[in-house]
C-alpha cells in the first residue's frame, strides 16, 4: 500500500514541483549545499547502513565522489533508501537527484522512462544460489524448481528468458522487499534464489548459515549497474558521469587514496597533473572547481580503493576482482574510462 501511496505522491510531485528543478540540478544542489542520493534498503558492499545510520558501499561512494567533486567534501549527501519498485518514480519526481542503487542499464529504461544512465560502476550478471545439500551443481538442473526473487527488477525477465530458452518449468515466487526474499528462501519456500551475482554474494551474508549455500557457476544475463539521473539535465548528468570516470582513470594512472598527496606534489606526468587539478582547467567545463578530481581521489579514493574496501576479497561479500569484468582494462577487464581532458 505504502508503495502505491509513494507512487501516487511521486506522480503529483512530479507534476507540481519539478518545473523548479529544471532550472538546473547542479545550481540547485550548489545553492542548498547537499543533494539526495537514492540507495538500496541494505545490500552489504553496495549500499548498506551501519548501526549508526552511516551509509557505505561502492554505490554510496559514487554519490560521495559526486559530493566531493562539487563541495570538496564527500559527506554533503542525504541518502534515501528505496525499494526496487520505488526508485525510478522517486528520481522522476525529483525526490532524489542521483539514483545509485545497483540499477541495470537497459534500453527500455534509458529510452522510455525518462532516465539517463551516467555510466557503469559494476559489471554484474544474474546467477542462482542453492543449498549445498541439494546437490545441484548447475543451473541447468533447476527444472521444476521454485525460484525466489525480487519485484521490479530485470531479474524477473531474465529468469523467464532463461527457463523458456532451456524449456524448463519453474515457479516464480516474487517478493516486494529483499529481506522477505532472503527470509522465504532461508525458510525453504524456494529451491533457489536468483538475482545479480553480486547481490547473491551480499545477501548470502544475511542467511542463517551462509556456508550452507553456494552460488552456481552460470551467469544468465548481462547486468551493467550504474548511477542514473533524470533525463533532460545534461550538465548534472556530466558531473555524475565524470565523477565516476575520474575514479576509474585515477586508478589507471596509479593515483590512489593513500598516495594522492605526495604524487600530486611531485608529478611530471601531464595526465596525472590534470587529475590533480594542477593543469588543464578541467573543472570549468563541468562548472566545478579545478580540484574536483583531486578531491574525489583524496576524499573517496579511486575505483580500486573503493572496490577492495567494500566488495573485495577481504570483505564479507568477497568478490574477487582479478579475472572479472570489473578489473581495469589494463588487467584484462572491461573497466575503461574516457580521458578526463
Amino acid at each position, binding site marked *: *500500500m505504502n*508503495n*502505491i501511496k509513494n*507512487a*501516487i505522491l*511521486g*506522480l*503529483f510531485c*512530479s*507534476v*507540481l514541483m*519539478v*518545473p523548479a528543478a*529544471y532550472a538546473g540540478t547542479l545550481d540547485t544542489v550548489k545553492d542548498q549545499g547537499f543533494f539526495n542520493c537514492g540507495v538500496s534498503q541494505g545490500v552489504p558492499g553496495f549500499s548498506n547502513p551501519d548501526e549508526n545510520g552511516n551509509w557505505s558501499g561502492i554505490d554510496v561512494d559514487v554519490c560521495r565522489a559526486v559530493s566531493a567533486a562539487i563541495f570538496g567534501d564527500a559527506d554533503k549527501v542525504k541518502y534515501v533508501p528505496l525499494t*526496487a*519498485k520505488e526508485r*525510478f*518514480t522517486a528520481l*522522476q519526481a525529483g525526490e532524489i537527484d542521483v539514483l545509485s542503487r545497483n540499477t541495470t542499464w537497459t534500453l*527500455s*529504461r534509458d*529510452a*522510455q*522512462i*525518462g532516465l539517463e544512465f551516467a555510466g557503469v560502476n559494476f559489471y554484474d550478471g544474474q546467477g542462482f544460489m542453492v543449498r549445498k545439500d541439494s546437490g545441484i551443481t548447475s543451473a541447468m538442473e*533447476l*527444472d*521444476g*524448481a*521454485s525460484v*525466489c526473487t525480487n*519485484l*521490479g*527488477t530485470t531479474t*524477473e*525477465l531474465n*529468469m*523467464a*528468458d532463461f*527457463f*523458456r530458452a532451456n524449456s524448463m518449468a*519453474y*515457479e*516464480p*515466487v*516474487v*517478493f*516486494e*522487499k529483499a529481506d*522477505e526474499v532472503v*527470509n*522465504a528462501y532461508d*525458510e*525453504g*519456500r524456494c*529451491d533457489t534464489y536468483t538475482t545479480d551475482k553480486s547481490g547473491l554474494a551480499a545477501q548470502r551474508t544475511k542467511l542463517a548459515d551462509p556456508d550452507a549455500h553456494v552460488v552456481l557457476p552460470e551467469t544468465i544475463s548481462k547486468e551493467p549497474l550504474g548511477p542514473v539521473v*533524470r*533525463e*533532460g539535465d545534461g550538465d548534472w548528468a556530466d558531473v555524475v558521469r565524470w565523477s565516476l570516470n575520474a575514479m576509474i582513470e585515477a586508478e589507471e594512472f596509479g593515483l590512489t587514496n593513500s598516495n594522492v598527496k605526495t604524487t600530486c606534489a611531485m608529478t611530471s606526468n601531464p595526465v596525472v597533473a590534470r587529475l590533480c587539478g594542477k593543469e588543464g582547467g578541467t573543472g570549468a567545463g563541468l562548472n566545478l572547481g579545478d580540484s574536483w578530481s583531486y578531491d574525489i581521489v583524496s576524499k573517496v579514493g579511486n575505483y580500486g580503493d573503493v572496490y577492495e574496501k567494500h566488495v573485495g576479497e577481504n570483505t564479507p561479500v568477497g568478490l574477487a576482482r582479478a579475472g572479472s569484468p570489473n578489473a581495469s582494462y589494463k588487467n584484462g577487464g572491461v573497466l575503461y574510462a574516457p580521458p578526463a581532458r
Partner: protein
Amino acid sequence: MRPSKFSNFIFNRNVQGTFYQAITLSLVILGVYYIVQNTAENMMARGLASGFHFLGVESQFDIGMTLIEYSPTSTYFDAFIVGLLNTLLVAGIGIFFATIVGFAFGIMRLSSNWLIAKIAETYIEVIRNIPLLLQIFFWYFAVLRALPKPKQSIEFVDSVFLNNRGLFLPDPNFGEGSSVIFYLFWITIIISISIFIWSKRRQNRTGITFPAFYVSAALIVGVFFAALTATGFPVSFDIPELKGFNYKGGMRLIPELVALTFALSMYTAAFIAEVVRAGIMAVSKGQTEAARSVGLKEGLVLRLIIIPQALRVIVPPLTNQYLNLTKNSSLAAAIAYPDLVLVFAGTALMQTGQAIEIIGMVMGVYLFLSLFTSIIMNLFNRIMKVGER
C-alpha cells in the same frame, strides 16, 4: 429608505449560494485542468511515453499462480486479468470464511456460558488490535517454518500432500458419462428447493412441519452416489507426484494464498463479530421473551426471531467490512501472492514505466469492486427489509 433592486439581488441568499458554488466549481475545474496539463507537459519533457498501447505487448515475465492460461508471451493485458482474478479469488474466499467465523464469534460473545463468551472476547480483542500486515507476515512465516520440505511431505491416504510448497490435492478428471451425474445433481437440487417451498406453504396452512432439510440432503447425496455407481464411476483422479523439486499434477494451493486468506478472514472476522453482536443487541429484549413465551426452542428463537431482525442493523456495516477485506487484499504483495497490485502495479509497472496509466487502472478496479459489492449488499438489504414492522 427602501433597499435598491441591486442590493436586493446581492444579498439574496439563493444568489449568494449559487455564486459561491460557481466559484468553488470553477476552482476545482481549474485545478484539475492544471494538473492534467502539467502532467502531460512534464511527461513530454522527460520523454515519458503515455497511452495504453503497452497492454497489447508481450509481458515477458512469468506469474507464479494463474487461473487462466498465461506465459511470458502473453500480453500485459493478460497479466492484468491474471492479477485481477487472483485478487477476486482471495477476496471471495476471504469474505466467505470471514462471514462464517465472524457470525460464530459474534454469537459466542453473547453466550451466557462464561467460558465461551470469554474465548470470543479474547479472540476479538487480540486479533483486531494487531496490524494486519504483521498478522500476514506471522501466518506466512509461521506456516512456512512449521511445514516440512517436499521430500518429507505430510501425506494423507497417499493422495493429499502437505509441505512448504503448498497443499497438493488430487484433481478430478471427469470422463464419459459424468455429464449425466451433473444433470442429476442439478435436478435433485431443484427438487429440494421445491420441497422447501412446499413444506413451508403446508406449514403456513396446516401447521404440520416436514423435515425438509434432512429429506433433501438425503436425496441429493443418495442420488449422487447412485448415479456414480450406475455410470461405472467415470471420475478419475490426477494424483500429485513428487518429481524433482516439487509435486507435479493434481491441484495445488500455494502457501501464500493460504496464509493471506487465513490472515484476512481471521482479521475481518473479528470486526464482523462485533458488528453481529451490535446487531443482535439492537433487537429489543421483548422479542426474545415473546418468542420464548410462545414456546420456541433457543435455536429457533435465534434463527426465526432475532437474526432476521438483527440483519437489518448488521448488513450496512457488514458491507464496509467486505469492502475493507477486498482492499486489504492488496497487502498480498508483501508475501509474494501474485495479486493485482504485485503483478500489475508492481512488475508490469516496473517493466513499462507507465505509472499513471497502470495506477489509474488499478485504482479503477478497486473502485469498481467496492461499488459493485455495495450494490449487491444494498440489494440484499432491501430484500431483508421487506415485511418489516
